[in-house]
């Protein structure tokens, strides 16, 4: 099992585009990917599920990845989070 936590910095929160990016990356891996945010849990591979977390800036996303390719998945997901939910420079 792999885990990591990422704090959302983008002031728009986990909106449709980053959610889309995360779930499309997640879908490319066999491992199960769970995202926890507060009391809610989402299936990382499902866009609506991720969007439904309603995560806003400052909240923490907790990723739990389990499966054959969990290490690669962790790295890819962490990268996409940094890229899409990092500081919003706009």
């Amino acid at each position, binding site marked *: 099992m792999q885990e990591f936590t990422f704090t959302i910095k983008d002031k728009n929160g986990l*909106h449709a*585009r980053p959610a889309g990016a995360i779930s499309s990356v997640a879908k490319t891996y066999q491992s199960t990917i769970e995202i926890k945010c507060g009391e809610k849990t989402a299936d990382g591979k499902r*866009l609506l599920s991720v969007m439904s977390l309603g995560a806003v800036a400052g909240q923490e996303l907790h990723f739990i990845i389990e499966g054959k390719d969990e290490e690669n998945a962790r790295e890819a997901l962490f990268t996409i989070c940094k890229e899409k939910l990092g500081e919003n420079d706009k």
Partner: protein
Amino acid sequence: MINKSTLVQGIGITNKRVSGRLRFINKEKSTDKKSTIYNVGTELLRLDEAIKRAKGKVWELEKRARELVGGNEAQIFEIHAMLLEDEDLNELIIAEIKKGKSAEEATRLATKHYERVILELGDEYLSGRASDIRDICTQIIDALSGNEKDSEQIDGQYILVAEDLTPSQTVLLDKSKILAIVTFGGTPSSHTAILARSMGIPALVGTGKIDYLLNGSYALLDGAEGTLIINPSETQAEDFEKKRAKENKIATEHERYLRSLMNKPAVTGSGHKIMIYANIGSENEISGALSNGAEGIGLLRSEFLYLEKNSLPSEEELFSTYRDIAIKMGGRRVIVRTLDIGADKQIPYIDMKKEENPALGLRGIRLCLGSRDMFKSQIRAILRASHYGRVAIMIPMVISVREVIAFKELLEECKRELSKKGIPHDSKIEIGIMIETPASAIISDKLAKEVDFFSVGTNDLTQYTLAVDRQNSSVSGLCEENHEPILRLIEMASREIHKQGGWIGVCGEMAADLSLTEELARIGVDELSVSVPYLLGVRGKVSECK
């Protein structure tokens, strides 16, 4: 996304070549909003198909957006595509279908659920995303009803692509924008083909299904060869242009010759004069008819005034249009055929029962005699217009003397009503009937005594005589080489009407078939009525006849 050249083969109507962008239109909206279903399996299949189509559409939009405004803005369509693929949403829709909901209803319920979930998050920015979900819902439902919006407007003219065109659709189309028509189904004598001929544009029918994703693609349509090349290669395009240039040159020379004959009467070598009239389906075609030498209107399909509207046109509306046509034709004969509708040519606001066999059902004069008020209002409008020109009235689908007498009684009744109010009309208006059933030709001796003229509707006469459905491509070919039975019936009717001092015309497709002109002249046909693009050709052919 699909850019390789695709060749589609069909049956070409008119020998022209055109190039342009394809525009797909869908079947008419189904008016019944279904909420319950027949069969879960079918509904699941429909859903599956609809989602695929909606996704195709979204990717297409994404591609266009990327080209137009760049990748950042286009991302939203990527999100839409992902939403369409989303398992949670799909599973919820499927669950609703399994509960007995229709695919439409299930989609509405499922998307509503997620819309609410997102709105309840209370985050302002995310709430905006609820609209994306609504958008998805609309797209799936539109795809389900085969009713996608034209999100991409094609500027200018286009090649229309449709599964099939219904008569009412063809009326509502903006014809000035159509370069050519392509239909998946249909035969050379289907509505589409007739429309294309009357517009003088090429058409390709019976192509089989063409992928909706090709909407908006550039294509070359060759009516002579019956081909459509979508996304042509450079060599294909050059080859096409060469053929087109050559064809245009020949066409121009021939037209110059025909134009020189335009104002001369059409007389055969043996001295038989034939009037060349135009078939029109709306007022807009008059200027074309006149500039191509029409000596009259042999068939005014009066349905257009009914099809254009959402309710029954009033007598005043009908009158003013007929009057304008009579005036524009300036004393030339205008034959108004009374309303010819039936279960296969429906008018949405007239309640017509679905029929097993509409060709043999309640249509034409049968329907009109049963809808007295509607029919009388049309008859009065025609009578009133007759004061402003030379108007004749003609009834379709006659099979008995009784029908003609019933019609004449109504006509007299209308005349009396108008006279009482002092409204001017031609009290001796010419009366004609369509000869389009074998019955009417067989009893033409009796019918000839009741009317001033006959006009042969060869399309229906062929279908009823040969027992061949002209919309059915597996048998419609049988009509092509089997003219003799039809010609014999026309000859019979011609003999009888002439005995009574009347005259006979032909207004069906056969009138425009130049290989039959000689024979029709020999039979003694007095008038040939054809759609506008054929006027010059038919006139030219008559003068070449023996």
